[in-house]
């Protein structure tokens, strides 16, 4: 048992009702009344971040709902999961948001999806169920049938108001110009600078988690793959990893290498696309055109190698479906050309004053804000958070390779651009290492049945850590919690834009590279 579990037990002794361990996850069942104190202790005293909070409906088993608080422990590559039980008749529990800010959206999500009320939450408005959704209907409860069409009701959503002389509001969206997804942004400005921004999302909430419970496991991997279009590989891999952990499978080394290559190819085209977007938003069309050309080169390489531009259909539970080893020389050659051109492009970009003027010191996310909101991925790393799942909770074949985790402290758009640019080069290095050391052997192990159990899957997607928690029962998915990195990062935009001018908002938004689709699940 690791030292942190020991400290928790010592500090709370009889209040820890039950301890169970599976894989590298330790589940501590605790009293609901003490959850705030315990989370506060683990978060502030032991300094472990909360990476996910989710609820499960276990009324069929013991008549109660459970809420899980997942803490990540990098030192031992372990997870500590606190679990509280909530009785159906008294669906209330104490909110931890006042102590741990990153719990905000999770608790509101649980309130909407399960009808469990976080008492003392500073902002108890609805999050995912909109005002026209009837009260008392909670989609993720087991007694809610997937085909239910609840009637629309009247209701109103109250936005935060900023008042004062010369303060006016600019509502943007949910329908935007251009082909992007819906989201509402409400700016309050006094003159040029933004003094407040409130975002509203979940316009396209699709009920993905409910859908998981209603399809067979072999088909579910394709659903995971389609949660967030440009993070297809990351979602599919995370889902497969969770399933493989439940089944106690060790996938063949060749499959691990191929997964690593696919994940890094995905990171490369995403990061280049983000840099292209930043160039577009400062109207530097030369840089944008060249970056988009490079992105297209990667997409075409993907298509030649895997048959799909977005690398879809490659992963399956137990390994990968196609071999890419025969394309080694082609991948290496294409990537070396892309890397050479990309480096030159980055030199151009950093020597263009009209671009640098716009991105330096713009959209700062300070380290304490980033830490408080648990901002993940390259955005977090650009704000000084040295956290990367590839190194901290290694999966696939990352343990065998050398790579640098790029961290910058500035926290502005420029820092995020540089972190991404450097990560592209690291990714190319990783693919080279994986291809040079590609082991011979099978591509997949056959999986007929997944035993009953539960496990966490974790992966560093281009946008940051992606987490799946899956419970299976009778070869079916009982509960599948998906935590996309954008779910953590969206709120940081409310802080990043403060004191910036409205015309800089698109650049800040682009530099955070937030997914609507991954968020509005």
């Amino acid at each position, binding site marked *: 048992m690791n030292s942190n579990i020991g400290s928790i037990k010592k500090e709370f002794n009889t209040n820890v009702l039950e301890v169970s361990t599976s894989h590298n996850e330790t589940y501590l069942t605790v009293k609901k009344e003490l959850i705030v104190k315990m989370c506060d202790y683990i978060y502030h005293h032991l300094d472990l971040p909360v990476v996910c909070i989710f609820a499960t409906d276990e009324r069929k088993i013991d008549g109660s709902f459970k809420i899980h608080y997942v803490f990540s422990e990098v030192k031992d590559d372990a997870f500590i999961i606190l679990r509280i039980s909530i009785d159906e008749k008294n669906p209330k529990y104490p909110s931890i948001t006042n102590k741990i800010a990153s719990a905000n959206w999770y608790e509101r999500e649980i309130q909407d999806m399960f009808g469990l009320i976080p008492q003392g939450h500073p902002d108890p408005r609805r999050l995912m169920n909109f005002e026209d959704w009837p009260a008392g209907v909670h989609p993720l409860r087991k007694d809610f049938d997937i085909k239910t069409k609840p009637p629309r009701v009247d209701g109103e959503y109250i936005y935060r108001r900023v008042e004062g002389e010369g303060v006016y509001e600019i509502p943007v969206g949910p329908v935007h110009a251009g082909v992007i997804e819906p989201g509402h942004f409400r700016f309050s400005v006094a003159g040029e600078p933004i003094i407040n921004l409130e975002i509203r999302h979940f316009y396209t909430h699709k009920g993905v988690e409910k859908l998981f419970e209603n399809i067979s496991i072999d*088909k579910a991997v394709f659903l995971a793959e389609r949660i967030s279009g440009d993070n297809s590989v990351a979602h599919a891999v995370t889902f497969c990893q969770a399933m493989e952990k439940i089944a106690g499978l060790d996938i063949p080394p060749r499959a691990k290498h191929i997964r690593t290559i696919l994940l890094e190819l995905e990171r490369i085209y995403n990061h280049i696309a983000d840099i292209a977007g930043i160039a577009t938003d400062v109207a530097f069309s030369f840089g944008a055109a*060249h970056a988009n*050309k490079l992105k297209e080169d990667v997409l075409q390489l993907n*298509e*030649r190698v895997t*048959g799909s531009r977005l690398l879809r259909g490659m992963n399956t539970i137990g390994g990968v*479906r196609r071999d890419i080893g025969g394309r080694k020389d082609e991948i290496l050659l294409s990537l070396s050309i892309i890397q050479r051109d990309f480096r030159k492009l980055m030199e*151009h970009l950093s020597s263009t004053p009209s671009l640098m003027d716009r991105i330096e010191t713009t959209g700062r996310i300070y380290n304490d804000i980033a830490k408080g909101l648990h901002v993940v991925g390259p955005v977090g790393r650009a704000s000084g958070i040295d956290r990367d799942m590839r190194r901290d909770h290694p999966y696939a074949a990352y343990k065998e390779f050398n790579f640098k985790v790029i961290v910058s402290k500035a926290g502005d758009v420029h820092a995020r651009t540089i972190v991404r640019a450097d990560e592209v080069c690291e990714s190319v290095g990783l693919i080279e290492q994986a291809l040079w050391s590609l082991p011979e052997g099978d591509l997949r192990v056959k999986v007929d049945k997944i035993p009953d159990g539960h496990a966490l899957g974790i992966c560093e997607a281009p946008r940051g850590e992606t987490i799946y928690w899956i419970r299976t029962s009778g070869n079916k998915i009982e509960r599948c919690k998906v935590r996309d990195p954008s779910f953590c990062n969206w709120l940081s935009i409310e802080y990043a834009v403060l004191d910036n001018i409205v015309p800089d908002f698109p650049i800040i938004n682009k530099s955070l590279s937030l997914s609507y689709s991954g968020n509005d699940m």
Partner: protein
Amino acid sequence: MLEILRKTIKAGCQTTKYPAVPDIAPEGFRGKPEISDKCTFCGDCIKVCPPGVIWFTEKSGEKMLSLSYCGCIFCGRCEEACGYGAIKLTQEYELASKTKEDLVTSIRRKL
């Protein structure tokens, strides 16, 4: 500025002449699935299709296996599951059509 001009000239024209000149997808591309006469109507592809766009119909002494490209996700599981090599993903990707009916392909057999 000069450097930008130089790079622009060097990059040249990157776009292709598509659709005037056909753009052929690479080998191994996951495109339109096609069913051939080898089909034995065993129904294995129906079981594995994630979006469920392959189905049987029986009408006036005829058995029909149909596949709709409308919901197809081009995952290639039908190809993998078919023991007779009757269903294959092709390099065809130009699937746009004005009606949903045009996007259904079927093979028939007399009962």
